């Protein structure tokens, strides 16, 4: 309707005249996208090893060579002193300590087995777990090599046991590129944050300045007011999303296997929802500080529980159920399914329905809760 068009025009004029907001909105997301994509890497690499060899035998040196040759491990120091090892752990100079006791080689030949001690800095539990796991694999590998070399010297059956050979392949992301996984999700996060903040702050700002009163005193209808705010921000949101998408493709080479049309379709509906959420928040707050704070609070929780950084499947059942009402979860699912796996509409129809319902309910609430007469 005409009234809404007038309001849209006003918003655009204000946005483009606002010299500080515009670069922040456009530049910041791009920067964040870059930084975040490079920083957000949970892959375990370069586990630092402190080597304590009390045996100094051919066998122990064989193991050392294996460690040095490995891509996973990085030898940082060696010493005889347990104190040095402890210090290295405490001062975060190493992640893992390999301790080869004195009788290592002797025991291998005499008894047919020997001990090795691994000590890990387990503050980062995942890293410690995977680090020791890889260490174990490496030691097993060493065992095979050692047996192949010296196995005939001792009466141990070589591995003529039946073996199952597992081969593995990775689909959709052959090179296990972490960025391919993270970037679409980060894009979602950015669009979400910007969308919610802009729309919440926008209305509250008018409240603080008093200009909202001048609108409230006109015969303007509530839905016209909300639509007049929603539409320009929606267009802006789609624009930012496009910029982000271009960056994702050009800078990070993220594949876009599925239909772009489908991606945009979902984003469009999602934007309506998230902008509506911002507006709903603004109907409850009177100062920009409050609006910011409340938005921040909800967003952080939603984002953390959305499967962006840590998989939803790893959460306890009660938490997984909670994520069912988390709209961000659905966007992340859709964007990963469609972009990286080429999912079609039937695969994500459930998510569409959920977000669509959300959009209607939240915007309806925003309109209902907005008071022209206080």
């Amino acid at each position: 309707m005409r009234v809404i068009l007038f309001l849209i025009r006003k918003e655009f004029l204000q946005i483009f005249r606002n010299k500080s907001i515009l670069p922040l909105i456009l530049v910041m997301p791009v920067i964040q996208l870059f930084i975040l994509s490079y920083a957000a890497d949970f892959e375990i690499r370069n586990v630092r090893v402190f080597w304590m060899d009390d045996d100094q035998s051919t066998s122990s040196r064989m193991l050392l060579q294996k460690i040095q040759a490995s891509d996973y491990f990085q030898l940082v120091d060696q010493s005889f002193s347990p104190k040095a090892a402890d210090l290295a752990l405490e001062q975060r100079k190493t992640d893992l300590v390999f301790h080869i006791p004195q009788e290592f080689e002797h025991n291998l030949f005499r008894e047919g087995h020997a001990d090795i001690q691994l000590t890990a800095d387990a503050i980062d539990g995942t890293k410690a777990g995977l680090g020791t796991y890889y260490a174990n694999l490496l030691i097993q590998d060493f065992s095979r090599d050692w047996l192949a070399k010296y196995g005939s010297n001792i009466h141990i059956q070589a591995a003529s046991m039946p073996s199952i050979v597992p081969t593995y392949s990775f689909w959709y992301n052959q090179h296990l590129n972490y960025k391919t996984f993270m970037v679409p999700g980060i894009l979602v996060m950015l669009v979400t944050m910007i969308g919610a903040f802009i729309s919440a702050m926008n209305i509250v700002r008018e409240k603080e300045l008093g200009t909202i009163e001048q609108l409230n005193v006109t015969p303007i209808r509530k839905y016209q007011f909300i639509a007049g705010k929603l539409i320009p921000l929606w267009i802006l949101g789609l624009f930012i999303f496009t910029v982000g998408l271009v960056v994702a493709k050009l800078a990070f080479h993220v594949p876009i296997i599925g239909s772009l049309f489908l991606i945009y379709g979902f984003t469009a509906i999602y934007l309506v929802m998230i902008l509506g959420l911002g507006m709903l928040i603004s109907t409850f707050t009177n100062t920009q500080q409050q609006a910011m704070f409340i938005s921040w609070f909800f967003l952080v929780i939603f984002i953390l529980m959305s499967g962006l950084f840590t998989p939803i499947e790893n959460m306890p059942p009660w938490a997984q159920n909670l994520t069912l009402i988390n709209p961000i979860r659905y966007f992340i699912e859709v964007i990963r399914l469609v972009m990286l796996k080429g999912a079609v509409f039937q695969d994500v129809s459930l998510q569409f329905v959920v977000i669509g319902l959300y959009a209607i309910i939240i915007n309806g609430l925003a309109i209902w809760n907005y008071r022209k007469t206080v």
Partner: protein
Amino acid sequence: MTREAVISVHHLLKTFGSFHAVNDISFDVYRGEIFGFLGANGAGKTTAMKMLTGLWKPTSGKATVAGYDVFTQAESVKRSIGYMSQRFSLYADLTVKENIELFGGIYGLSTRHIREKRIELLSRLALTDSEHELISALPLGWKQKLAFSVAMLHDPQIIFLDEPTGGVDPITRRQFWDLIYEAADMGKTIFVTTHYMDEAEYCDRISMMVDGKITALGTPEDLKKQFLAKDMDEVFIKVARHTQPIAQ
């Protein structure tokens, strides 16, 4: 001579917690008059006005504006009135032209109508050359005059002005009142709040609010006679002294 009451207020009350901002006021405003709603800062004038313009809900009591009940028919009230708030709420980051077009559009005026009004309005205020300037760039006096004119764009019969002349020099104030007279001559009813007592002389009738209550009501002449005062300042002082402070 029967006159039509375009604003009718009966025992209007607005409380915030235990604080009575507007404490049971009753009065009428007749068509075509300039009604001055006087009182010191914090007396409750703005609160009363916000109820009459449909912005705030009354706690109790009844009021009709242009025949519509402010409690149940707030939106109809808004269609019939113009409003200029204390904070000159035109958009500072939009130009003169853009503001006029925006509010014209919101009130449902046709594009041609808006254009006609805009040209006429700007020439009357001698602002035609400043059409493309941002509101923030205009001096305060021009902003006020512009805000008033925008409030009248849709030709409302009743105009509410909340402290329209705050912070400008006497000459600009005088110019603003010329605009008010012009509007009154066109048959419009003007409801204006102010804490400048000399402006009371410009009104047809005035009321005085002290601590949420109306303590005086009538023409300036009548009040001066009633309180044996030579000007409205003195009337106000005498009124304020007579009134007991309301126990909280």
